[in-house]
């Protein structure tokens, strides 16, 4: 691996690091695990980088590697404490931006999303990232129809949590 490739990779990753951070936020519960997963995703991205030929956008390519690492390759570190007090910025609701009902709804929804299974989370994540069903199904390896059905089920699940 030459220096040029290394530099190109780190620059591209640095520009797109928010994708990795978002995945880490969804799949971990504390700062240490977040950093741990970020590092593993970085390693996997770097290992796969020579195969990245640029036929897709770097960010599109990142989604797949990041999710695969989070769902499949990553082993949760042993010292995993489910600290309730640790709340990543992404799950914090700014009170002044929304009215009370919206604020309550968002809080409940974020909580519900965190409770979903790993695969469900991946679907919701891609949905929130504005990916279409073709992309979602290709990333996860399921058919487009199944992706839609699954997403509808998750919506129903979230609805029940919001309106018990």
């Amino acid at each position, binding site marked *: 691996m030459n220096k040029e490739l*290394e530099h190109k990779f780190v620059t591209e990753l640095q520009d797109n690091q928010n994708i990795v951070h978002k995945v880490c936020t969804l799949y971990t519960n504390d700062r240490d695990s977040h950093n741990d997963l970020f590092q593993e995703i970085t390693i996997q991205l770097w290992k796969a980088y020579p195969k990245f030929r640029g036929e897709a956008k770097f960010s599109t390519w990142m989604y797949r590697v990041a999710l695969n690492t989070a769902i499949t390759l990553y082993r949760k570190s042993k010292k995993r404490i489910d600290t309730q007090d640790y709340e990543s910025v992404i799950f914090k609701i700014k009170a002044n931006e929304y009215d009370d009902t919206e604020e309550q709804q968002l809080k409940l929804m974020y909580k519900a999303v965190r409770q979903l299974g790993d695969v469900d989370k991946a679907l919701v994540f891609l949905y929130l990232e504005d990916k279409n069903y073709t992309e979602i199904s290709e990333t996860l390896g399921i058919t487009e129809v199944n992706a839609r059905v699954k997403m509808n089920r998750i919506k129903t699940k979230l609805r029940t949590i919001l309106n018990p």
Partner: protein
Amino acid sequence: MTDELELLKRDWQKKEAELPTLSYAEIHKMIWKKSSSIVKWILIISILEFTLPQLLLFAPPMEEAMQIYDYIGVSNYLFALSLIIYAVALYFIVQFYRRYTEISVLDNSKNLMKKILRTRKTVKHYVLFSLSMILVTIIIMLVGVYLNEDIAHIVPELKGKLENISSDKLKITLMLTIGVVGILLTAVMACIYFLLYGLLLRKLNKNYAELKQLEF
């Protein structure tokens, strides 16, 4: 509901600006760190599983055991058996290597999980094979002891003390010992193996089941 999910989407995308940012140097440092992915663990454990039993054969207590095989008169059978074992092990190693190299993080999630589980399955079959070979070895030894006329000859150190015990009694005791120790050994190895992989692959199995469930 769509509205609520749209609300969540809007909020989610707004949060972008508040995410942590790592510097160039911080990311650069990370790319040379060691991976701790489960694929790597499977590779390490598998290599151990392929080599440990072989290394055990060269341990000093094993050499003494070989002598006992000679005394019982089964060393020829065991030699033939070990040739078969090596041939099959070689087949498994090649198979394992081929499947291992097929694993790619660039695959879609389902294929990636499928390939990892398939690679592991190769090791699983190898371990089952190894465990059954231990049992076959034990059976060969039991038959050897059973057919042997001069049992006291097998353990020469004890010859003096054993003279007043009947040959049949000695034979049964020896066969029972070999049988019990052999089965215990197999059971312990099986336990360690299944526990190890069970823990390692718990998450993967769960997520694969979740994905598979989507097919109807």
